[in-house]
């Protein structure tokens, strides 16, 4: 790891992992060698949840908080040994698991796991019934928009007090990833739902996780205190986690400079690159020992278009749009020139994403070549271009606005006179996002941790997230095949072929992603940032040296 990596080096490396530090880097490995210390308070800036019922919202604001208080059957490994963008399964509440056949999974639970010592559960032991109850509620709860993640689940059976068997309707190889996903299946106690009617109130936040929710005040903050009965002996090391809800960028930036927050204030404990560039020198003076680590973001935007009607049903038009899209120019304008190029699976998911230069025939359409784009348009019968619209929402981000403006310019340069249609977020989500728009649109996708969620919804006919109205039998066949291919190497090959096919067809024109800058105070040891909402998991074995 070096702090002298240039942007070019970063891009060359695919931007998957680079490290930098403001001061001398102790580095994660150095941290492991020290003896962990118990105690202390960790200060974070997080978000105000709409409510606390994780089966009635898809908000990351709710999901992130539950990673401190709740456990899942499985989770992704965290800590200094894990490279950001890599997701390796390990047991959480499940001591072990097996797959007797393509559609059956059996989970053996840890014994002696106790719920938080709070009424109405009062620290009773977690059993297989709790797991069944959670999965049943997850699937049946009206308003749980994430339940499509368990669409393959047929039934959950309690074999004995510590064993659960899950049967699928059809093979679905991503099932264990869905079970481990911090967005979805934190195990909840039945008593809390029965007492409160649902889990919306903060008093209903009762889990088996490393910390317990101690207090919550809307728009102000959340306090977690260490769960003394946590099932992993000695963990967590940190006694208290103070969360400040700070929705104003200037104030959280100032608070961070002043040392109020221990981790970066944006997603996954990062700092936005534009802010980082502005603050770097100040931080060198004010917080010289701050640690940082760069890794590619899985936040990916794309251009989508009505491929079910002219002119976008012509592949030459779609390829022309891709050729007209100056991806590096976009990065220069909005991300200080640093980022990674994305095929259909974002580069950040390095276990599954195919580098752009390996996309075969489709790789050529990632080059910025307006002259060729104009030629392709002419061949498609549009020598003078055509009028179009680009629907979008700002998401409250100036970066998004800048990106759309650049996109309009790139389109104009090849003769496509696109009229911007800016929509308020609610309007955008209820119309454009569901594929109801005139000709083109631009916006980000949900940052998932698995390739299936990036591919199946957007490319499968009939899916709500098929924003480009794709109906390609070859692609559909591969999408189903990858879901049924248990062998990882073979599945990866199918996924690579899907990405090659998507690059050739350009149903979606993918924008590059930025490179996150994970930042944390030098006092936080044994911690490494990663993608995803699992803040609690990443901090489980962290400790404070101050």
């Amino acid at each position, binding site marked *: 790891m070096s702090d002298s990596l240039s942007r070019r080096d970063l891009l060359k490396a695919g931007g998957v992992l680079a490290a930098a530090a403001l001061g001398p880097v102790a580095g994660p490995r150095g941290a492991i060698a020290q003896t962990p210390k118990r105690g202390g308070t960790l200060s974070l800036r997080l978000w105000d949840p709409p409510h606390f019922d994780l089966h009635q919202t898809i908000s990351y604001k709710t999901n992130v908080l539950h990673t401190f208080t709740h456990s899942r059957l499985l989770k992704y490994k965290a800590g200094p040994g894990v490279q950001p963008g890599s997701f390796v399964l390990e047991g959480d509440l499940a001591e072990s698991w097996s797959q007797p056949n393509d559609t059956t999974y059996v989970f053996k639970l840890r014994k002696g796991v106790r719920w938080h010592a709070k009424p109405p559960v009062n620290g009773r032991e977690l059993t297989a019934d709790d797991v069944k109850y959670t999965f049943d509620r997850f699937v049946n709860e009206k308003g749980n*928009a994430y339940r499509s993640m368990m669409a393959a689940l047929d039934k959950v059976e309690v074999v004995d007090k510590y064993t659960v068997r899950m049967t699928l309707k059809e093979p679905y190889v991503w099932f264990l990833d869905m079970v481990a996903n911090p967005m979805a299946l934190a195990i909840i106690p039945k008593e809390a739902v029965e007492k409160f009617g649902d889990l919306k109130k903060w008093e209903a936040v009762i889990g088996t996780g490393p910390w317990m929710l101690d207090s919550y005040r809307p728009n102000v*903050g959340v306090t977690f205190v260490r769960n003394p009965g946590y099932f992993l002996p000695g963990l967590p090391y940190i006694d208290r986690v103070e969360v400040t809800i700070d929705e104003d960028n200037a104030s959280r930036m100032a608070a961070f400079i002043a040392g109020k927050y221990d981790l970066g204030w944006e997603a996954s404990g990062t700092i936005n690159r534009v802010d980082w560039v502005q603050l770097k020198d100040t931080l060198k003076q004010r917080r010289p020992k701050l640690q940082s680590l760069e890794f590619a973001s899985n936040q990916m935007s794309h251009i989508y278009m009505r491929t079910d009607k002219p002119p976008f049903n012509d592949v030459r038009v779609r390829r022309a749009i891709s050729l007209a899209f100056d991806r590096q120019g976009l990065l220069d304008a909005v991300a200080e020139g640093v980022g990674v190029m994305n095929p259909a699976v974002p580069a950040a998911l390095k276990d599954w994403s195919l580098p752009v230069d390996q996309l075969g025939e489709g790789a050529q359409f990632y080059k910025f070549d307006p002259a060729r784009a104009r030629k392709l348009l002419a061949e498609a019968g549009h020598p003078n271009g055509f009028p179009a619209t680009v629907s979008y929402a700002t998401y409250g981000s100036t970066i998004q606005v800048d990106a759309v403006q650049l996109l309009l310019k790139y389109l104009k340069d090849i003769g496509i006179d696109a009229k911007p249609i800016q929509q308020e977020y609610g309007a955008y989500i209820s119309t454009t996002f569901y594929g109801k728009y005139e000709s083109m649109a631009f916006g980000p996708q949900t940052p998932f941790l698995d390739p299936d969620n990036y591919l199946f919804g957007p490319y499968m006919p009939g899916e709500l997230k098929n924003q480009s109205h794709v109906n390609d039998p070859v692609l559909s066949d591969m999408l189903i095949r990858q879901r049924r291919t248990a062998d990882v190497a073979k599945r990866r090959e199918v996924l690579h072929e899907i990405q090659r096919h998507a690059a050739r067809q350009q149903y979606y024109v993918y924008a590059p992603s930025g490179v996150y800058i994970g930042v944390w105070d030098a006092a936080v040891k044994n911690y490494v940032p990663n993608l995803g909402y699992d803040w609690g998991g990443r901090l489980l074995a962290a400790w404070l040296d101050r």
Partner: protein
Amino acid sequence: MKRYLLKRLVVAIPSLIIASLIVFTLPRLLPGDAVQLMLEEKAYGKDVDDLRHKLGLDRPIYIQYFTWVGNVLTGNLGESLWTKRTVTEELGMRLPITMLLGGMAICFAIIIAIPIGILSAVRADTLRDYVARSAAIVGLSVPSFWIATLVIVLPAIWWGWTPHLGFTEFSKSPGAHVLQFILPAFILGIASAAGIMRLTRAMLLEVLRQDYVRTAWAKGLREGVVVMKHSLKNAVIPVVTILGIQLAQIFSGTVIIESIFQLPGMGRFLFDAILQRDYPVIQGINLLVVSIIVVMNLLVDLLYAVLDPRIRYS
């Protein structure tokens, strides 16, 4: 006076009915409802319809309106579609914060603006007047969120220090609770202060040129008596009118200032509710604000009679 008061209260009823129609209808005209925002892009099967039915959003709009009005008349503002907490309970937590912030802001505005306005009028066209007028123009031109941002960010960059950010409960520390409002209230009051100062100056200048004031000077009265006793009372009536209007302006300013200073008031609550299409919350807050403004304007009208004995309500 009683008759006038009664008449004004009766007149307020149609205003409130019209306001209730507006606050009920306008949020529903925005594309996308709470259900679509709850489910976002991940709606599955009949989820959208089912949830809309569960929340009662599939009923005809006029039925929803009359149900809401009926509940309001019994003191029930409904419950949040998102949190299921009652709007009254939420407002009970947040209204005192916004009231304190707004109240302090208007006090700061008055404390700063009236003396400077008087001084500026009495010393018209002197250096002090020019400085005061220039400062007022700056105060009017510079948005409060920008000042707030600078006040927070610059000390952090220069000295690694920030003013108090976050919220301290009154029960934990009454002193700190009140102190945390001073800076945001001062910033919020700046624009209002600028307007009030300019108006005070202009009105006072006009009064100072009147014959009865010249007579007072001719009698040999001291400057303080001429200005404070004989002139200011007559000059201040339009300023009182403006104060009523400034209240609405200050309330709208709290939305951003509360966010920046992390104060959990009503402004922030309203902002979130609009983004989430939380209709009962939007309606409840707006109806409350309309009611407050109606009442404040009534009080302002009544204050005229106190300030100017020539004004009588019958």
